[in-house]
């Protein structure tokens, strides 16, 4: 099965090279048609993202096809082909299948488990389909790659844990409060990142939201943007007694929330946990707050630490995902063997079925008095003969395909049964 993928990615090529080769959609169409017209490839798909440029193709001579394809790509982008040629990797057959599965499952991404890549592969597939460069082999390959990607996502936790600071804060809140439904949030100060974290919390059901800021107008403005309520800055302590989650990001040079303040509001909270997300530098919440029972305080470094742990966790899950992909590759390679011979098998069946149907019709026309039973018997008899005749050649085609040498058999079958040019 002469399937191959050639390209370069963040793994082996610097961004300086990748950006030179990145192609927009219109150029891609042009390129695909161009490559298709040369006749060196039978099927082709180009995946172009900011982290990779890859050509997936089916060709009789992969080496030649690869060179021709990238020559054209370089030509389109005005890049010298030599600098690209040295950075290219090529995978053939089973390895190409593995690569396609790994890319779609986000195992080859810069950030393992990132969700965008699957959409990008799907777009590339749709584009190649619209340019009619997708044939049976690439169609089967990518349909399966999408299925594998979905399986990886649901059966492993590769994409589960947050890798951004604001999402990590939301996850921590969930580890404390379980559900965030009806948890009150207080925003102290108005930074971009704290606003983002607040939005994430609201999406998870947190409500109501209060905003405190030294500038009253700014507090009101932000409260309106987030459908919250502005509270005067000097009533911070009162607010602290009522809320569950506090996000701080003021520009104050010294802590605005001290251990003493928090200690004072604790009795009124009756043991409800209080979670501080302190994104400010210098920090807004005194470190000594950690000592208080039921109070959790995470500053920006703590959050980064959680993100790092989550990334390691993704790495762990990636091992499980790799094993899953490996099993899928093994399954697929056996199946892929048949792809090349399937069109021939189909036309062979169609051809014999047409002959059979025609002959049955003629025979029945000469037997006007035939009962329903007789007609059915003739149908069944003829079908059985056709199936018996087809059994051996179809089996032989499948076997030859799995052995990797179906060409001569395909030609033979075409000749023998007069199937027309392929």
């Amino acid at each position, binding site marked *: 099965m002469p399937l191959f993928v050639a390209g370069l990615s963040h793994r082996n090529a610097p961004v300086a090279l990748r950006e030179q080769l990145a192609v927009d959609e219109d150029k891609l169409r042009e390129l695909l048609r161009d490559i298709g017209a040369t006749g060196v490839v039978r099927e082709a798909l180009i995946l172009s993202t900011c982290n990779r440029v890859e050509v997936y193709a089916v060709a009789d001579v992969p080496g030649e096809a690869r060179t021709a394809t990238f020559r054209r790509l370089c030509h389109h982008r005005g890049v010298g082909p030599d600098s690209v040629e040295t950075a290219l990797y090529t995978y053939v057959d089973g390895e190409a299948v593995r690569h396609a599965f790994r890319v779609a499952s986000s195992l080859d991404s810069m950030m393992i488990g990132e969700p965008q890549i699957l959409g990008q592969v799907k777009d590339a597939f749709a584009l190649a389909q619209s340019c009619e460069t997708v044939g049976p082999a690439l169609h089967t390959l990518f349909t399966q790659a999408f299925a594998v990607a979905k399986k990886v996502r649901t059966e492993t936790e590769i994409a589960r*844990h947050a890798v951004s600071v604001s999402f990590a804060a939301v996850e*921590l809140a*969930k*580890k*404390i*409060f*379980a*559900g965030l439904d009806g948890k009150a949030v207080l925003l102290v100060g108005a930074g971009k990142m704290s606003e983002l974290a607040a939005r994430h919390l609201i999406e998870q059901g947190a409500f109501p939201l209060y905003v405190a800021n030294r500038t009253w107008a700014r507090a009101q403005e932000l409260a309106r943007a987030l459908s919250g309520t502005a509270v005067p800055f000097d009533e911070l302590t009162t607010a602290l007694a009522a809320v569950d989650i506090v996000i701080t990001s003021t520009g104050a040079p010294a802590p605005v929330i001290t251990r003493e303040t928090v200690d004072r509001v604790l009795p009124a909270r*009756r*043991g*409800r*946990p209080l979670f501080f997300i302190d994104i400010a530098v210098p920090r807004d919440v005194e470190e000594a707050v*950690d000592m208080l*029972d*039921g109070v*959790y305080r*995470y500053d920006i470094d*703590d959050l980064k*630490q*959680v993100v790092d*742990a*989550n990334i390691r*966790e993704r790495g762990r899950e990636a091992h499980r995902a790799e094993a899953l992909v490996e099993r899928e590759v093994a399954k697929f390679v056996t199946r892929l063997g048949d792809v090349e011979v399937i069109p021939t098998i189909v036309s062979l069946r169609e051809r014999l079925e047409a002959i059979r149907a025609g002959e049955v019709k003629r025979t029945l026309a000469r037997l006007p008095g035939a009962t329903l039973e007789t007609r059915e018997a003739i149908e069944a008899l003829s079908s059985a003969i056709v199936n018996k005749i087809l059994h051996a050649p179809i089996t032989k085609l499948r076997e030859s395909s799995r052995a990797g040498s179906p060409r001569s058999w395909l030609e033979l079958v075409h000749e023998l049964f007069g199937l027309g040019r392929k």
Partner: protein
Amino acid sequence: MHQTLLTLAIIGYVVATGLALAYLVQREELLHRLASLATLAAWVLHTGALLALAIELGRPPLASLPEALSVAVWVVVVLEMWLERRYGLSVLGAFVLPVALAFSLQSTPMRPLIGQTLSGAWVWVHIGLALVGIAALVFNFAGALMYLLQERQLRAKRPGALYYTLPALATLDRLTYRTLALGFPFLTTGLLLGVLWAGAAWGSVFAFDPLAFLSYVAWAVYAATLAGRAVGGWHGRRAAYFAILGFAALAITLGAGLFLPGKHGG
């Protein structure tokens, strides 16, 4: 017959406990599946052992403390399997099975009660209620332990394996509260019936029996915890420490009942 089955069941619990603890550390799905299988197999053997014992004795195996404890373990394990499946709490086994195993080790070999006269329906009700109470409090203990571990993870700010596998603090706090609220009335009524029955059968409510005496202590700890939670607004860590203290008292009580000479058939 029942002794063979019970020994096999205990071996099964040992294997299940080992696998559940390994899963807690390694987080390999396969370990969890094996642990669940071992738990189920051991529980089936345990069921067989209890049935065989009941047939041999010609009565429910609830007349002595070792017998009742064995039934309590049986209840705990079936609840553990159910809760684990119902709430997707795959690490629960690692916290409940060791306790179940310890209880079942103590309940063997089982000796029938000697020189005791058990009469009246009250005593069966006493045993049955206490048994349900103890089973609920095993989960109270497990919940408190998980709470404290998760709390430590969140305070350390360096997520480890437990951070990812243990449920949220609020969930664990609710689990400990609910199991206490469920177990305490059973324990109380069970004890009360015991006191009344003891007054009638032993001639005195204070007839010296180590289990009876210590159980008042355990009861007092649980009563204080429940009062603290319901009225004092206790939450989280303090409630969890008390849950563990209460369970320690309960374990000592049961140990005393098993190993010291008394009227509970140790």
